[in-house]
């Protein structure tokens, strides 16, 4: 049986060129999926949704709201996961991955809140409510900000990595809280509020563009996080010989 030594890719020098080759592909996939999702979401969907108290055109915000919210939670899992791997195996690249994921995760958390506010105003009558899910998503945003602030507040990189990683892991409790925070025991009583959704009950013309946008933003996240990772690797490894070669090569291009 052939075994792959995964730790080989854990070396920043080995992963730097791999990430560089992957970024354009993730970028292309992201652009294609987002364009398909937008076209489908705007042109192949009904203008109104639901029966007696329909959601009007503003429901189309779902095509950015749900994907952003999913990515905000997923990237937090990525952040905490790499933090844990970094603490356990003491691999430098893991901490760099975690640090690279945080700003994009914070961005999607903000977007989930922003697009939710613009959806909430026409459908609930308010931009903001201390609804359990809104509140826990806001706390997730503060956790991302806290991770980044704590990391940049400690000068020694290794200590910053470890302290921020610990915060990220403790903050992991927020993800299941967001997932479970639903204040609606009976979906028929509060159709407009956050409810436990059953993918089977969502109309396909809504579900497909929503999932397409989600995969598009996922591919975008890969590209953005890898791009940030490459800059972090260069900064942290600037003393090593391979970075000198990279700089010499890139400077002439």
């Amino acid at each position, binding site marked *: 049986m052939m075994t792959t030594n995964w730790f080989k890719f854990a070396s920043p020098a080995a992963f730097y060129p791999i990430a560089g080759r992957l970024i354009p592909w993730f970028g292309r996939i992201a652009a294609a999926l987002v364009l398909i999702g937008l076209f489908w979401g705007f042109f192949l969907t009904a203008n109104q949704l639901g029966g007696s108290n329909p959601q009007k055109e503003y429901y189309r915000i779902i095509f950015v709201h749900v994907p952003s919210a999913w990515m905000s939670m997923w990237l937090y899992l990525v952040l905490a996961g790499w933090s844990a791997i970094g603490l356990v195996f003491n691999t430098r690249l893991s901490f760099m991955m975690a640090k690279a994921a945080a700003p994009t995760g914070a961005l999607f958390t903000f977007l989930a809140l922003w697009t939710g506010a613009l959806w909430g105003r026409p459908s609930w009558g308010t931009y903001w409510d201390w609804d359990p899910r809104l509140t826990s998503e806001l706390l997730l945003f503060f956790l991302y900000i806290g991770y980044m602030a704590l990391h940049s507040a400690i000068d020694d990189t290794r200590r910053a990595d470890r302290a921020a990683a610990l915060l990220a892991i403790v903050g992991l409790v927020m993800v299941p809280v967001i997932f479970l925070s639903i204040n609606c025991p009976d979906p028929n009583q509060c159709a407009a509020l956050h409810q436990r959704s059953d993918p089977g009950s969502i109309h396909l013309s809504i579900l497909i563009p929503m999932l397409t946008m989600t995969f598009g933003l996922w591919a975008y996240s890969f590209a953005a996080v890898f791009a940030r990772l490459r800059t972090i690797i260069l*900064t942290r490894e600037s003393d090593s010989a391979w970075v000198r070669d990279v700089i010499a090569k890139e400077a002439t291009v």
Partner: protein
Amino acid sequence: MMEFFNQGGYGGYVWGAFGMTFGLLLIEILQLRGSRRATLIRIGRLLRLRAPRQAAAASSRRQGTSGTQP
């Protein structure tokens, strides 16, 4: 066309949501590009500062060898 932009009177909400999303993604892409460029320039400058003698020695060696070549 106007109908599309109007979104049944909810255009402000719909375009506010989509505009912020893709606006911020665009800003992130530009920011990543800028920081990559700045990092390359900064490290390049640092390397030249740190090893001016080595660089000078290497370049003179290169010139030397090219000079002896027929």
